[in-house]
């Protein structure tokens, strides 16, 4: 018989702190040095998410086509140059932010950052490339929208915030037809400026790479932090959409809440983790392990710049749809009526600590955490305070926040399939 090893204390995870620098024009650069692996990552972050756009798809098309052509090079030449040195280029967008990331071997940092400078500062959005990009994306979106999970995501977003709400709106594929070089240039000029940008450099970089990134930031034009209006959400309580031939139902249940800056956010994150943030969570145990209705279920608190929401999600066997919804609301009820056991709360805490530690494994994880903290107007000590708050939370406090926000009539339910 093999004895179980004793559980050793691990203490608080060490949170890497960045050095805050700024380019000559005041644009911030956060530096996280880690010399182990001979790789460097640079991310440029812009206040240019989709909620800022007036023309549908303009924000995503701008960030996705920055590399499609510049004043000096064609899109093909840029792709060639990056591929030749094996550097990764990645453009990402959400409702609030766009992020452009370059990952490179240190020995190819100079070549990669030369390209980065062009892509960030001198994109030309060539007409032919833009037309080709839009045709391709239109077709890809059409393909995506035949998949239940995509439909479910979009329907849930609209139901949660409202059809026209900047955090919920979706647009028809045909809107790509209205995208022109002019539209893109206008969005780029008003959003990619020194006042709405920051950058993060991480990995095995030296002074030279750091200076090079500062020079790129100094090339950004002066501008203003762009304006936008985020109205209150106007939720639709129930949407049920049939799909012909579907074998499963995609269920999403949630409610609009608040951003990470709200005093109850961390407590609600604990609630979400307990509901569906790890394998032993209540929804997983109920829907998958006890009932076999689904391959997986999850719950999460989603943070947006000016809002946030709680969501639970599962793709379940079509003929168990009703039972699954009943079970989910049963778990909601249990969370609001019974205080969590000390053992369960301890597991939830450990899950959260483990998740934080896993993010920091490898030279680039700290960059992701830094980006998120800066976006929320915090420093990396936020992560320490967050862990401190999680460590101090009581079962009564968990029940109290669940009880405050989980009112059945406030929930939005969408079922696709």
């Amino acid at each position, binding site marked *: 018989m*093999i*004895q179980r090893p004793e*559980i*050793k204390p*691990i203490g608080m*995870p060490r949170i890497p702190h960045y050095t805050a620098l700024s380019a000559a024009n005041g644009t911030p650069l956060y530096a996280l040095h880690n010399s*182990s*692996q001979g*790789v460097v990552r640079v991310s440029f972050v812009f206040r240019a998410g989709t909620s800022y756009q007036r023309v549908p798809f303009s924000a995503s098309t701008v960030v996705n086509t920055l*590399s499609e052509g510049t004043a000096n090079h064609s*899109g*093909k030449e840029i*792709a060639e140059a990056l*591929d*030749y*040195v*094996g*550097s*990764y*280029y990645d453009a990402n967008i959400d409702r609030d932010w766009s992020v452009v990331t370059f990952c*490179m*071997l240190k020995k190819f940092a100079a070549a990669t950052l030369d390209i980065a400078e062009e892509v960030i500062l001198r994109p030309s959005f060539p007409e032919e490339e833009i037309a*080709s990009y839009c*045709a*391709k994306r239109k*077709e*890809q979106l*059409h*393909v995506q*929208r*035949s*998949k*239940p999970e995509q439909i479910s995501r979009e329907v849930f977003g609209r139901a949660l915030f409202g059809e026209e709400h900047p955090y919920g709106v979706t647009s028809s594929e045909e809107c790509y037809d209205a995208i022109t070089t002019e539209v893109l240039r206008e969005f780029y000029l008003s959003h990619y400026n020194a006042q709405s940008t920051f950058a993060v450099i991480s990995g095995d970089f030296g002074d030279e790479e750091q200076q090079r990134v500062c020079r790129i930031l100094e090339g950004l034009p002066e501008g203003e932090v762009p304006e936008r209006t985020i109205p209150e959400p106007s939720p639709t309580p129930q949407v049920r959409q049939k799909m*012909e*031939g579907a*074998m*499963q139902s995609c269920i999403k249940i949630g409610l609009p809440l608040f951003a990470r800056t709200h005093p109850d956010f961390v407590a609600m994150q604990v609630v979400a983790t307990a509901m569906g943030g790890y*394998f*032993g969570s209540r929804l997983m145990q109920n829907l998958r*392990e*006890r*009932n*076999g*209705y*689904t*391959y997986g279920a999850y719950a999460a608190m989603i943070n947006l710049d000016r809002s946030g929401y709680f969501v639970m999600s599962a*793709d*379940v*066997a079509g003929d168990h749809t009703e039972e699954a919804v009943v079970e989910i609301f049963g778990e909601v009820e249990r969370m609001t009526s019974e205080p969590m056991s000390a053992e369960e709360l301890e*597991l939830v805490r*450990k*899950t959260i*600590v*483990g*998740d934080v*530690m896993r993010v920091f*494994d*490898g030279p*680039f994880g700290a960059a992701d955490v830094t980006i998120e903290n800066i976006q929320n107007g915090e420093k990396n000590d936020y992560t320490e305070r967050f862990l401190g708050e999680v460590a101090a939370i009581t079962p009564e406090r968990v029940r109290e926040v669940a009880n405050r926000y989980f009112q059945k009539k406030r929930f939005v339910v969408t079922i696709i*399939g």
Partner: protein
Amino acid sequence: MIDYKEHKLVNGLTVLANYDECSAMAAVNLLYEVGSRDEEPSRTGFAHLFEHLMFRGTKRVPDFDLPVEEVCGENNAFTSADYTNYYITTPKENFETALWLEADRMMGLDITPEKLQVEKSVVIEEFNQRFLNRPYGEQWHCLREMVYTLHPYRSPVIGLTPDHIRNATLEDVRAFYERYYRPENAILSVSAALPAEQIFEAAERYFSVLPGRGTIERRGKVVEPAITSPRRKVIESNVPADQITIAFLMGERGTRDYYLCDLLTDLLAGGESARIYQHLVRQRQIFSAANAYITGEREQGMLILTGQLNPSVTIQEAEDALYGELERLVQEPVGDYELRKVQNKFEANITFGELNVMNKAMNLSYYRMLGDMSLLNGEVDIYRSITAEEIAEYISTHLNRNQSATLIYHRKR
């Protein structure tokens, strides 16, 4: 570059250790050399169902996940055609909990009829979610059936049909466990800021009580006969766009042809600047998305060319365009610059793929299974040695319509 030390227990368990000074985490990876290729043809999907059952508890540890969660750990597993891989990450202070759990479930499971029943439903829902309830979902079933006539790679890991999973019995579970889940058939690797000696000593403590039982009975090697005339299947279906997928049978892992095919598909589709993307997606706008890759099995895998067609393009045009790209590599062998580009990319990809403890531990087990540890850090050199002439020669002798299997999805209008 991954450094490692190796140790073998008397019962046959192989243990590998990598020292990572930067990480606060330990990754514990346990690979069993059994996959869907080892299944009976009437019991496909079983290796994967079995992987799920490994999380259903033992007499001594009724809930597998709980002790992992108690040490801030995370665990998961996957099944491939060739092997089944289990992994746990924990803060390094508690890596022994992972060893204990793995040793425990190597000692015996506790599967009741009820547990088997629930797990079958979960796996059937996985089948539905990933393969049936989505457009093109059954494409791998169709393609494998066309390419493989004898080899067990004919069946995808999930299984040929949900019925095979429904029919699995407790006796099947017991026999499979007896045959494959034993120390001689397992490779344990740990990557952490821990000395190798400490890892080996702990492995001895937790695993040496397991008895070794000598050789493992395996099926004989199956050689899939070459494809000698075009195979073709057209599916009329409610898909959003037409799609073409061309598959060729290719060499085993470790052969020169394997690396050549991998490099060749990177010339075609490895990155934005690659040929298929530049020529067929951007310039000629034949496809809205296209790709070329190898499926990467240990025995004879597949080289795949695939694309989703833009609305006005015909299947014939798309097919000719893909073969046109192969033909061009024969007519004008690829230049030094382009070849160096994809070779550089392999080097970078390998570096980026070794940045955390999990990937390192997984790679250690996998390369040990392949049997040639010089490949762990040596594949870049093989990629760098491949020439344009070899690629042209390979295409002209292997990648033609007569040796292809082509699956077409035609959108119902």
